[in-house]
């Protein structure tokens, strides 16, 4: 047995499932827990965890897939940039198929745009160093887990005195949308499965205000199946006891205060702003944009380009899905008009999207 296998132990998982069933047996109203991180969404589908939980516990997915919450306008700008001469778009692979208003980066690539998949933003810095005659734009999408590495790439480009490396930044930060969802009267969330690796950066203290202001239990939970089941069990206990506090299930990684080094890099390179979340809207202080001192690296400021007029896709229910109000199976487009090959909304594209998970693993 290796390190990972022990967190995928069938007996442990089924034991936790039994305990959850015993605790919740006979409840008339199911307990509703939301996982706000796309990696949790994937893990829950991939291991078929819903099929192990009793009907008294419902898991719903929230706005935690960074690609999914990226608004169309951002993609339209990235697509417009990709059409400029001598410009290379560097991106994580997930962004390729996401539809903008009328195209996608994958289509642009097929028609000749220079779009390259990288596994680390530092690879994009290297591409810039090797191609001094071209501008390289990295698509900076993600939560606090990826943002420090992208901040690091800007610092590296500065040290190397590169004038041709830029970031199109659309970073989001985590606790803010959870406050909006907690205040939403249509949603009654009985507890949050809080993100694992985002919490490693921001620290579990970041969720305290949710417990205090909205009386909702929060458990910072790891991504393996035993983690998720134990996280759910901890939430069930809090809900039944009527308490709401932050607990750390993922204690092998997450600390209360988070990662100070990563936080200081973020504070150095980025500054908070009111970010636009697809399906949710503009939330105060919920994003990170490039700070004034680093504006030379900001693609939006440094490379002016005409962006096409925004067009939202008719009938797309991604917004409702991102808020956990409906499941993919409730969307009329799911699996018919909207499939992974020809996605209508971002939730179907991203490898962490709720609809992609439901399409790939649903039964």
């Amino acid at each position: 047995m290796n390190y990972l296998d022990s967190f995928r132990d069938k007996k442990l998982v089924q034991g936790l499932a039994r305990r959850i069933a015993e605790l919740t047996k006979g409840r008339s109203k199911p307990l509703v827990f939301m996982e706000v991180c796309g990696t949790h969404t994937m893990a829950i589908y991939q291991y078929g965890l819903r099929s192990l939980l009793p009907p008294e516990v419902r898991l719903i997915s929230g706005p935690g897939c960074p690609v999914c919450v990226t608004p169309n306008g951002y993609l339209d700008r990235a697509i417009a940039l990709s059409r400029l001469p001598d410009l290379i778009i560097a991106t994580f692979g997930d962004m390729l198929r996401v539809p903008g208003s009328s195209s996608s980066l994958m289509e642009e690539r097929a028609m000749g745009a220079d779009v390259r998949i990288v596994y680390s933003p530092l690879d994009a810095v290297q591409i810039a160093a090797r191609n001094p005659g071209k501008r390289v734009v990295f698509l900076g999408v993600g939560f606090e887990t990826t943002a420090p590495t992208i901040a690091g790439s800007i610092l590296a480009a500065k040290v190397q005195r590169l004038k041709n490396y830029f970031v199109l930044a659309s970073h989001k930060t985590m606790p803010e949308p959870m406050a909006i969802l907690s205040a939403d009267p249509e949603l009654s969330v009985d507890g949050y499965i809080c993100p694992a690796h985002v919490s490693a950066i921001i620290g579990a203290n970041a969720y305290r205000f949710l417990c205090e202001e909205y009386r909702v239990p929060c458990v910072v939970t790891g991504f393996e199946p035993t983690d998720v089941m134990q996280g759910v069990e901890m939430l069930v206990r809090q809900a039944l006891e009527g308490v709401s506090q932050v607990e750390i299930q993922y204690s092998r990684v997450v600390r209360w205060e988070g990662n100070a080094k990563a936080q200081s890099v973020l504070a150095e390179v980025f500054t908070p702003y009111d970010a636009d979340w697809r399906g949710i809207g503009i939330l105060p202080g919920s994003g990170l944009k490039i700070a004034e001192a680093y504006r030379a690296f900001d693609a939006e400021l440094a490379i002016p380009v005409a962006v096409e007029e925004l067009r939202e896709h008719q009938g797309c229910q991604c917004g409702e899905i991102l808020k956990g109000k409906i499941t993919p199976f409730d969307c009329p487009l799911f699996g018919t008009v909207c499939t992974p090959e020809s996605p209508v909304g971002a939730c179907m594209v991203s490898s962490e999207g709720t609809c992609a998970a439901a399409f790939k693993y649903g039964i």
Partner: protein
Amino acid sequence: MNNDIIMLGHGSGGKLSHQLLDDLIIPQLSQTPVAGQNDAALFSVNGARLAFTTDSYVVDPIFFPGGNIGDLAINGTVNDLAMMGARPLYLSVGFILEEGFEKSDLCRILASMRQAADAAGVAIVTGDTKVVPRGKGDRIFINTSGIGAVEHDLRIDGAAGRVGDKVIVNGCIGDHGIAVLSAREGLEIDSGIKSDCAALNGLVAALLPLSQGLHVLRDPTRGGVATTLKEIAVQSQVTIKLQEASLPVNPGVKGVCSILGLDPLYVANEGKLLALVAPELAGEALSIMRRHPLGRDAAIIGEVTETSAGRVLMETLVGGVRGVEMLAGEQLPRIC
């Protein structure tokens, strides 16, 4: 999506490839829809039953741990014939070379082709070489076609799966895709994983005595085990249920997959076959495989549970149940 142009995903072996075949290529060139197609065509000439197949190889990088584009081009085509239960006999080879390609690299590739052909017992009997200007190709592309003799009356067909059949794989899955990926520029992971690239005709010959009990043979190349099983489920109109705990996966493959967010079920293989075998002969099939050098890690990974429109389900490691779909788009381009 822009429907006017070819996208990389059309070459993935997954759903988009099927659509391209069904919508564009097959209506013009053939009468059999893709769902009725197998790895090779079968026909009779003066009473002799023959299998015929072709495949093109564009793998990037051309040299990878455990093989190169040359032995891949031989083994891939040999395997397509073997999956029909045919005895591979003769191959053709077509090269498209890019101006500037190093002769020493070509020599290495030719030597492994020679070796692979000898090992598989096939003769390369005809060929062609073209050179395109620099920048109009990518070093080397190879096409091989093959003819084999079908010397039995069995119906080994993707549509021949039946309720009760056991699903057997001859070893660890995902090695080829991960070996190629690990060797990619910019990734260069030292995973220690080697491609499983190998000719399977010897193993198939050892399985043929199972006779009527051998229902389906398929090599899960692009799209991996998941895509191939879904194809079989649809062709046979059955539900296949997998046991995740029974899937043989190398620890290195597991590791790379979890780092990169890939699923070994969708990663390509080049020396693996999936066999659907009648339940009473499954034990015998397993021991035949395990006695063969290419089947030491063979395992029963699932079974056909019922008739349906074609579904694949999997009982996960932790006892949950989930669906298994075909590869959508591209997981990793140019792995063969």
